[in-house]
């Protein structure tokens, strides 16, 4: 009997995890410099989106013996001047924006690379917060960056607010795929301005980007209206059920 019910009831254990890639298996147990990247990566936007070690560094994440073999495409860590090309394999547009900027033009001559501002393993989601006094003043005065940041603030706030609304709808089962793609495109266009230092251009392009964002806001407003209608219908349905319960109860009493 015990065995019968033993298999009928559902059991849960904690020991059910898919195996991790071999890079993480080995490096996460290593001390110091060799283990640090795993800890940093776990908090990154790359980890959040499932972009693991091999996506950047190459190699074979399924074969521990040959994981770091050049024959399996292992690239290792790039030299400083090669960093834009290293990141630019995926972030093609951003790489071009960077190379055209004052920062990119100073590459190899003391100028910053991608990882100077964005971090290497703890890669943060690109946002206006990356432009800050502490970071910029490592190399130069923050004054010009402050003016550009101010010009972008309103658009950035709109993007953040829309992103939060889309995330909330997604967490309710709404198909936000199209909205996410639209926001992704607009955000990317906006982020091309991040490497620019022409204040007038930033202001003009920001205005166009805000028009695009308003279209997404209108779609979200439509969803808000639809959800509000559902709640009104729900209130009517609940009230109807309660009224039916009351009437049936009264009717029953007439038979007592």
């Amino acid at each position, binding site marked *: 009997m015990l065995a019968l*019910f*033993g298999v009928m*009831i559902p059991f*849960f*254990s904690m020991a059910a995890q*898919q195996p991790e890639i071999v890079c993480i298996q080995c490096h996460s147990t290593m001390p110091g410099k060799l283990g640090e990247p795993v800890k940093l990566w776990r908090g990154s936007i790359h980890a959040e989106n499932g972009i693991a070690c091999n996506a950047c560094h190459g190699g074979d994440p399924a074969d521990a013996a040959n994981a770091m073999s050049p024959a399996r495409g292992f690239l290792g860590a790039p030299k400083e001047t090669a960093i834009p090309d290293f990141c630019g394999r995926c972030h093609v547009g951003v790489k071009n924006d960077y190379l055209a900027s004052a920062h990119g033009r100073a590459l190899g001559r003391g100028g910053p690379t991608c990882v100077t501002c964005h971090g290497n393993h703890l890669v943060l989601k690109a946002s206006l917060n990356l432009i800050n006094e502490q970071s910029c003043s490592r190399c130069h005065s923050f004054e010009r960056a402050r003016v550009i940041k101010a010009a972008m603030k309103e658009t950035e706030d709109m993007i953040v607010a829309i992103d939060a609304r889309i995330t909330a709808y997604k967490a309710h089962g709404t198909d936000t795929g199209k909205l996410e793609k639209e926001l992704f495109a607009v955000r990317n266009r906006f982020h091309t301005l991040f490497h620019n230092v022409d204040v007038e251009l930033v202001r003009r392009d920001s205005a166009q980007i805000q028009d695009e964002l308003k279209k997404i806001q209108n779609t979200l407003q439509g969803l808000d209206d639809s959800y509000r209608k559902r709640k009104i219908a729900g209130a009517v349905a609940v009230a109807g*059920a309660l009224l039916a319960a009351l009437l049936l109860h009264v009717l029953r009493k007439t*038979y007592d």
Partner: protein
Amino acid sequence: MTLFKRLIDWIDVRIGARQLAKEELVDYLLPANINFWYSMGSILLFIFVMQVVTGILLLIYYVPDADKAFRSVTFIMNDVPFGWLIRMCHAVGSNMMVLVLLLHMFSVLFMGSYKSPRELNWVTGFILLTLVQGISLTGYLLPWSQLSFWATTVATNSVSAIPAVGQYLVEFLRGGKLVGPPTLGRFFALHVAVIPLTIAAVVGLHLFLLERIGVSTPPFGLKETKNPWRPDGFRYEDHPGGIPFFPNYALQDLTSISIYLACFLGVVFFDPYLFFPKDAFLPANAFQTPAHIKPEWYFLANYQTLKIFPNEFIGLAVQGAAMTFLALLPFIDRGPEKHPLKRPVFMICAIGGILLWIGLGIWGHYS
């Protein structure tokens, strides 16, 4: 003569419908002190029918293929007219079915209705509880979301703690080493065919036993609350001077169903996400383990029990023993007293057990 009356007459002269209705509904007398808790079974029948109807409607658009399942559920939620409502009713309804089933079981426990000669009613009811747990577990995988995938991975993996055959059982359940398309096929067949048909059959048996043995008398408001049954021969428990099932108690059933509907619709329209964590709306990804996968609320106590014990097999054995004890309760508790206040030891054990179950669940939720 109205068309309706003519239709009834037509049927009546052929099958004696009026006589049947009189015997089975109007002259079917229930205990005079019957209470609200006796309508839980009718609510459960209503929920089961709702689950079948919404399930069939979902089947129209649902695709049981690992590559298409999540997209098909998203399509139901967003593009099918009222698809979101049907899906929410089905998902919320499954949780409500477990909740009402537990209430039904608690009322039977406290009123001593499981005692002789109703041991088989209790056992069939207990089998229904495990079947409802099974249908909930198999249904959980079908949307092929992160929650589905990982909750099923964790649940099926637990079977591996059974000595000797554990690993084979896991592979049998999954149809492979890991949860994948074959698991979806198996769970789909169980969820839409095997388990519902079995539930319908056991519900039929449960009702047949009720019909043969008669409705138990509640122990409240009576001087004599001891079980009058003697094992000297079969005897139908009738209730002379009781209240008719129709229209009196049928109206009580409908009142209870309406109250249930109000609560159910309240959850469906205002906060169905009570039962849907964020991972329920992300497609399954075998390479990305979500941070906090927790089972449904009614499995949290099982989940926590396994974590308490240092050895998984001991955790399984304790749960198996607890479930077996509960299944065999009418054969263990053979005292004649039915009134809960005259059964202090039983009351302490029952309330202690329920509080332990709730406590383990809360612990599991926050652990």
